């Protein structure tokens, strides 16, 4: 086999054909609906949120400008820092889903027939309403009658109140978070895997590389752009987690709620339960900054580990 045969396919480079003026107008007309939607549903609410974060906004009636008061209060609010830690821990746990997804994707790739069935099975949670997922897992985690504790009791392990004891809640969310994200991750990583030329594996097999070695030396490096993408998405999604917190700790006065709020849950509570919309907006802006920093950091770090052809 010649070296040219193992060469990876390159992206098409160079400029596309120039866009002439009439075509440009057509193009604008076609993207207008999306653009207007984007402006109305994203940009405008975003700007409003930023403005609100500098105001005291009651549920109804006029807002008053308070400068950076909301932010100062936020930085001194132990509740916010607790929520920040909770979200960070949840994100860390959800990131464990990435190696799991890589391993699973590689295993599914090995499956000849019925590959699609596995993909569908893992993808189902993605198309299921998060509310429904939260409800079902609430039952699974129930300390007295839950499935999890029943199974644990078979192997002689004492069950816990997974979603009523603040020592466990974030981990309980994390497990569900991993499971919920698996489907999307598998699709992206699966697509990445099919793009790796078979010839590379054949060549390495001839050189005497085993399956495990192939996985770590070929699959992971060549998959790294997909892994990076999946990681970025997972971090953003995890930092925005709200549904599981809202549904799984619902019920009259859950004992764990005070210690288990995520950032977005705190935002919801401040803005929609306690009518402090300005303070809520400040939380939302800080969350945006956190996500931006986390993402920028990952783009920085990727230079050292992501392998582009």
């Amino acid at each position: 086999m010649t070296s040219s045969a193992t060469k990876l396919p390159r992206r098409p480079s160079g400029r596309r054909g120039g866009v002439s003026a009439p075509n440009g107008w057509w193009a604008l007309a076609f993207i207008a609906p999306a653009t207007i939607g984007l402006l109305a549903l994203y940009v405008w609410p975003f700007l409003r949120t930023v403005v609100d974060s500098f105001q005291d906004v009651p549920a109804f009636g006029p807002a008053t400008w308070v400068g950076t008061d909301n932010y100062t209060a936020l930085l001194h609010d132990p509740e916010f820092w607790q929520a920040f830690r909770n979200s960070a821990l949840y994100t860390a746990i959800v990131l464990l889903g990435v190696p799991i997804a890589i391993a699973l994707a590689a295993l599914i790739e090995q499956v000849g027939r019925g590959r699609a069935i596995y993909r569908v099975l893992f993808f189902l949670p993605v198309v299921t309403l998060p509310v429904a997922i939260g409800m079902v897992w609430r039952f699974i985690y129930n300390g007295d009658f839950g499935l999890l504790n029943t199974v644990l009791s078979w192997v002689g392990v004492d069950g816990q109140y997974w979603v009523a004891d603040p020592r466990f809640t974030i981990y309980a969310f994390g497990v569900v978070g991993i499971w919920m994200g698996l489907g999307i991750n598998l699709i992206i990583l699966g697509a990445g895997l099919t793009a790796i030329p078979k010839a590379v594996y054949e060549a390495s097999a001839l050189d005497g590389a085993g399956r495990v070695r192939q996985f770590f030396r070929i699959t992971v490096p060549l998959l790294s752009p997909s892994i990076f993408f999946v990681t970025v998405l997972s971090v953003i999604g995890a930092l925005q987690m709200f549904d599981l917190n809202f549904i799984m700790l619902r019920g009259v006065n859950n004992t764990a709620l005070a210690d288990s709020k995520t950032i977005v849950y705190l935002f919801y509570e401040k803005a929609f339960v306690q009518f402090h919309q300005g303070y809520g907006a400040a939380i939302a802006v800080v969350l945006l900054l956190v996500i931006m920093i986390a993402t920028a950091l990952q783009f920085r770090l990727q230079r050292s580990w992501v392998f582009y052809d």
Partner: protein
Amino acid sequence: MKRRWIAATALAAAVTLLSACSGQSDGASGEKVTLTYANWSEDQTPAMQQIADEFQKANPDITIKVQTLPWTEYWTTLQVGAAGGTAPDAFWMLADHFREYAKGGQLVDMSDTVKANNIDLSVYPKAVSDSYTYDGKLFALPKDFDTNGIWYNKALFDAAGVKYPDDTWTWQDAQDAAKKLTDPAKGVFGIAAPIDAQGGFYNTILQAGGSIINADGTASDFGSPAGVEGLKFWTDLQAAKASPTLEQLSDTEAVSMFENQKVAMYFSGAYWALRFHNNAALKGKVDVAPLPQGVKRATVTSGIGNAGYAGSKHPEQLKKFLAFLGGSKAAEIQAATGTVLPAYKGTQQPWLDSMPEYKLQVFIDATDYSVPLPVAGNASEWQGLATQYLGPAWSGKKPVADAAKEYQTAVDQVLAKK
């Protein structure tokens, strides 16, 4: 966050579309209008629909669309809708949310309607109509009301050989019975002792001779000797293990524990009657008695109010509908269907008759010693603090008096804000 905004915007868009459609039909026939009437209870929707039908019979030009939202979405939808001009025309209101809406000018002032229709306000429990009064103006007519009693499981009482609760019961009787009824081997507890304000510690604090929030709504009284006594009623039950733990009650709500026959007594409101009545497994096993007395008898009372949206496009028709909702006919429908205890005086007999197996008169008699549910200041904010501050007292990690003082300080801080 983005997802919530999208959901809110999409919802607003959907509502706008809906109202746009109804707006068209308005134009076609000249005067026909559609009003939406929102609630949060699937259980009560049939009765609400029946009330709407009855109103439409007399007012063929007005169509009422009954809209049921899940409790989890109800208040956010209402808040976003009111701010965005797309709220339902008529909707259920609760005393603890009421003040923010009234203060923000979002509700229809009912004062003129009351005068024009000669509505006699004395037919409603004063505690309930007072809770919908802001700045001397009435903004919602009471729909129903509730007081608290002891829901108890006769089968569990019989099995433990304990006498059923009655109106002679004192705190001591309740504590003793709870302990006797507890049977760890069967997983049965004497009572459910969650951190529940309305069905629980508010009542016992009042029974101990205390108060919850002072008259001008500037400070709470949880740390006072009577306040601590009232809280101790519940923490003692927890300490005696006569109740499921807070963790158990977080996973499985007290009412479900009662329905699963895992707790023998559940102190709560009249609003569960229909649910227990419809539960075949509880047939012939449940009854209700007055709350036990401490230093005195007491229960908090509250009720849902029917409010109108100040931004409604059809204010005249809306006022007509709201007056109907507050009238005797609407009350009778609620009573006859056993839905809830209607607020309108003299319409309660059909409700009592609809579930003759329960001594429901208990809840009506309780109005004699009832106190309005305290709702001062930003009620939803300070109410949310109870579990956080009282939890350590319930689980025995902190002396009750200390927890009560810290709780009071936290509540007072919220009350001090405007």
